[in-house]
Structures are given as structure tokens and as C-alpha cells.
């Protein structure tokens, strides 16, 4: 059962990472325009080179 000593902290930190990721997306306005984001990914603007 000693494996729990590793597994539980790993589980929690991975979950916490997800939560931090979610809070970051929320703070950087990523839920403001769901339709627009779905459409933007289909543009070919960045196919040749990424944004400067």
C-alpha cells in the first residue's frame, strides 16, 4: 500500500494542474466567444508562418 504515498499526491497535483489551467482560460477571456474560436481554427492565416 506504500504506493499510495506516491499516487495520491500525483493524482492531486495533476488534478490541480487541470484546475489552474481552467482558471487561466477563464481569466484570459477564453469563454467569451465560443463560436468565433470554433471558426478561427479553420482559417488559413497562420498556415505559412505563425503570428509575429
Amino acid at each position: 500500500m506504500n504506493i499510495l504515498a506516491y499516487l495520491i499526491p500525483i493524482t492531486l497535483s495533476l488534478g490541480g494542474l487541470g484546475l489552474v489551467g481552467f482558471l487561466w482560460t477563464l481569466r484570459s477571456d477564453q469563454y467569451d466567444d465560443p463560436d468565433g474560436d470554433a471558426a478561427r481554427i479553420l482559417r488559413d492565416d497562420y498556415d505559412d508562418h505563425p503570428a509575429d
Partner: protein
Amino acid sequence: MTITDTHIGLSACPGCDATALATQRASKRAQQGDREVALSLPTIQCAACISVVERGLMALPGVSDVRVNLTRKRATIYVKPDIDDVVLTDALAALGYDAQPLDQATLSANHSDRAARDLLMRLGVAGFAMMNVMLLSVAVWSGASDATRDLFHWISAAIALPTIIFAAQPFYVNAWRALRVARLNMDVPISLAILLAAGMSLFEVAHSGDHAYFDAALSLTFFLLAGRYLDQRTRTVARSAATELAALETPTALRLKDGMPQTVSLSELCVGDLVLVRPGARMPVDGQIMRGKSELDRAFLTGESDPVFVCPDDIVRAGEINLTGPLDVRVMSVGKDTFLHSLADLISVAEEAKSRYNSLADRAAAIYAPAVHLLAFAAFVMWMYLSGGNVRYSLNIAVATLIITCPCALGLAVPAVSTVASGALFRLGLLVKHATALERLAEVDTVIFDKTGTLTVGKPTLLNSGDIALQDFALAAALAMASAHPRSQSIVDAAQGQALPTVAVTDIKELPGHGIAGCWDGKRVALGRADWAGSAGHGTVLAVDGHIRTTFEFQDTLRAGADQLFAHLRDRGLPVTLVSGDTASNVEAFAEAIGLPDWRAGVLPTEKVQFLKDLNAKGKHVLMVGDGLNDTAAMALAHVSIAPASALDATRVAADIVLISSDVSKIEDALRIARSARRRILENFGVAACYNMIAVPFAFFGFATPLSAAIAMSTSSIIVSLNALRVR
């Protein structure tokens, strides 16, 4: 070949056919001191539109950042302060997009976005905690014991307690608000269940107990927050669309300074200023005409569909539309003091009346909250007696009862349904502004319509185009071309469908408020009011050398879908009354055309109010559909009200539902969906009741375990959410 390329030629939006524009990246950042401009872009609909708009605007000098929001069909642009909005809208018009500047002040007054985001954050935190605790709980349920179980419980507590304090705050706040005024709402049992469950579980864990309800407390928080968030988002979408409608009317006026008109914001106008009102514009203020003659469309104020002639010294009201000639108006009152704004008080009275409406959720809570508390208390007392005073055991059972009865399904029952219903209505072009509007709409048993502007578009059509001699028609059309008057426009429209002889009319002049005159074949031809163009008589005529040749008859154009709407309402057996401020002859002709037996004409605003009061006194639930100021008071009194998007701002504010679509038959869909939604809500309450009937005895007699609570709660929530999807 990319996906955007395959759009070419298939899509309805201009941007999709114009992807091959010069590439310029939107990489510049907003700079200090830039002005923020919001534009409404109703026609954008795809990825290519975003690219075209963003690139097109970035190419303009002085623009430092552009961001298109496709969900809201809006663009936010950062420009140098000296650049006018017109430059931007012109550039977009050249690219093929309609754009209208939105008033920033009106837009930023809308704070509900922040509330929705706050709920979403709490929801995310609750979801994270719930999943982790559930993971640990499953280990306990599948047989972990002794030290392992205690360890898992302690870790659960460490995750659950901070989450419960943070994420469930909206419930505590609401519960406290209700308790402070000695009332019970749904949030009281919710808060109590969450806090007691957490506290009791902590106590159990500290004493190495078997059961901890951390996962139940967290799932309760999560599911209820989900309901709360759905509710908030539905209303945010409707409200932001409604705000946008208001922001489209940028409050400006043309002030005359030394004879030169300059655009100023309404708030800068003072009493005594002189403003210029061009033909086609709405009166920005109440005032007195100093110079110019014109005709006014007063339909918004009185319901009259015929234009009214005005000349110097006449009084005009804010909201009236100037039709023919430019007017110089001396400001008598502005902003809050205008007649238009005096209605604001009335609207707030109506809002108050509506907030007193007892929604289904309120009524359920009124029964539910005390019942839950009594039940939990009874369980405690009973087990105290049975166990001979074992407080810990009895309290455990009481808490289990409270958690199990706690209205997870009830918390979702209403928001899930109203989200689906409002979403369906939004796609049909209806904005549900008020939280209880759908429920009230489902109870409607009488419908009252205004005519002008509501069932008609406020634009005349020529009735007797078939009876007019071709040469007369050609003359009239040639004259009418020179005028922007709605009746002239309709003559031109009607003429386009006919093979008319060519006539050469020269020297055409429009005399505002009277008509248009010209020279043809050496004779004076005139189109306009009978008493001006010819001799005596009524209506619009064509006269040659003072002799009336033809009379033109007009009727207000029916809105699309009106026939269909009335057919449906007849099928439903709903009594419909047409109540209009227009003249009897106009209303009668109209009512006959749509086959409506019950109509009233020449009704003053106060009489409309009395009519509504009488119906209310008879216990009728009235749906009032109207657009004008003359309807606003009556709409405020009605059980539920709908206004078209073309209505005045004040009227839209008073209305519970705004019809964005130009097709009035959508009102029928609204009625159908509202009734379906009400049925689904009642079914959901039934599901919740059934669930309680099974679960409560279990908990009450001490058989409930955290596992059974978790299963029961999720099952009922899922059933309720799935049932909500059946709203159609």
C-alpha cells in the same frame, strides 16, 4: 485547399467569397490613449468573415487592434482618438458588411457577464473537488478500512472543506438574505445541508467514523451551481442582445451653432438650444418647431398610421419621426424630462409587479423548504428516542435525510428547462428578457395586439395600383422619385412592376408637408395632399393643372407571418382583440383583411390601460403585443408582453420578450414553447417528488449510506436534465 476555400460560392456572407485579400496580420497591440469602439456586425457568420473584417480594419491608418466576437456578432476596435466611427463603418461597407456603432456607455452598463464568469469559476472549482473526492470515496466504498479509510477521509476533508467554503458562497449569501427578513427560500435547506454534511463528516472523520458525506456535499454544490450558471447564462445572452438593441441608438443630435449643424451627444444639449432634425430622423428632444414644414410619423406616440402635418410653432415630442422636410427645433426639454422618459417611472412600477409574480420554483420552494427541515428534525427526534439519547447517531441520520432530500433535481428542474426553451426561442429570433416570462406566457388566455408598427411595418403600400391609368401612374412615379416620403416610396415601388410610358417631367420640387410638383408638357403636375394639389378632397392625389386625375389609396403593409399567426391563435381558441389608436376606417379595413372580428379603434393610451385593468379584474391572463409609447402603460399592466425590435427603447424595456425576427408568426412558436416548457418543469418536479418518496424513507430509517446518496442524487439530476431537452 483549405476548408475556408471550399466555402467560396456556397456561403451567403460576402467574406467567404473574399478570402484572397492582401495578408496583413492583426499583430499590432492596442496602444496607450486609444479609443475603444464597438461595432455591431449583424451579417458576419464564418471564419472568413472574421479574417476579412480584422484584416480590412487593421489596414486602415490609426487602427491599432481589432477583435471580432462571432458569438455576439460584434467587433471591438482600438483606434487613435481622432478617427471617426464613420471611417470604420465605411471601410466595412466597402468590404460588404453592415456595421453600426454601439454606444459604449450603454454596453458597459451591463455587468451580468461578470456574475456568469464568477459562477463558472466556482463551478470549475466544485467540479475539480467533486471528482477528486469521489475518486477517494470509491476506494472507501469498495472496502478500504481502518487507517487507509481514515487517510482517505482526511484527504477528502482537506479538499472538500475549502471548496465548500468558496464554491457554495452564492447559496450562503442568498440564504442569509432570506433568513434576515425571516423568510425561507430554496437556498436555506441547500446551505444547511451542505454545511451540516461537511461539519458532521468532519466530526465523524475525527472520530474514525464509517461514513463521510464530503462527496455528497460537493456533488450537491456542483449540480446546483450548474443550474445557477445555466440560469445566469441564459439571461446574460438575452440581456446582452437587448443591451445591444439599446446601444444601437447612439444618443446624438445635430445642434445648430451659428447656422452650422454639429453632432453632439444628447447629454450636452441644454434647454433653449436649436437642433436640426433631418428627414428620416427621430426627434431627439421635446421642443417647438422654429423653422420648416414637414410631416411627422406619430405612430409611436398615438398609434396613428397617417402622417401628421406640422409647421412652425407646433410642439414635437421625442420619439416622433420626421418624414419630409428638415426642421429646426428649439429644445424645450431633454433627456430625463422628456415625455418619453416620464414613462420610466411607470416601467419600474411594472417591474416591481412582475418581481412579485410567484414562479413555479418559488411555489415549490415554499412547500419544500419547511418540509425538508421538519423531516430532518423529525428523524433526529425519532432516533434520539429510539437510540436512547445517542446524539451522534441521531444527528448522522438527520444529516443523511437532509442531504438526500436536498433538491438537487429541484435546483436543476427549472434552469435546465428554461435554458433549453430560451435557447430555442433565441434561435427563432425571440429574446426572453425576464426570468419568469416563459412561465407567464404559458398561462396566457387572452391576446391583445396593437396595430401600427406591431402587425404592420409602418410603411404604406399602394392599394389601387391596378385602377390607375398608365400615364397618370407614370407621372406620379416620376414625381414620387424625388421624395423620401413613405407614400412616394410606395408609389415608386408599385410602379416598378408595371410597363409605364416614359414621361419627361422637369422642374420637380418638393414642398414639405404638402407634396411634389413639376412641369410636364407645359402643364403643372402635382402629387400630394388633395387640398394642396387640386381643390377640395381628401387623401393623396395626382392633379394636372389643378384638376384631380387620380386618387391613390394606401394601406399599411402587413408584417410577414401575421396571417399565419392569427390562424394559429384561432386554432388554439385564444380570443384576440385588436386595440389601436388609429382611425376607425383604417382599423376596420385592416381587421377585415386579416379576418379579425374583435377590434377597437381610436383608443387613447389611458383607455388602453383601462381596457387592460378591466380584463385583469376579470381574472384574465393577457398577452399584450405592442410597440409604441401608447402601448407601454398597457404592456406594463399585462400578464406578459412582447415588443418587436423596432419598438422604442422604453417599450422594449417594459416588454418581457423582444421579437428580433420580423416574422410575427414566431409569437405562436413562443406560446407553444412556453407551454411545453411549463409541462417539462412540472414533470421535473414530479421526478423530484418520486425520487424523494423512494429515498426519504431509506434515509429516515437509517439505511442511507454515502454511496446510495451519491447514486440517487446523480440519477435524479441526469433524468431531470434529459427531460429538459424534450422542450420543443
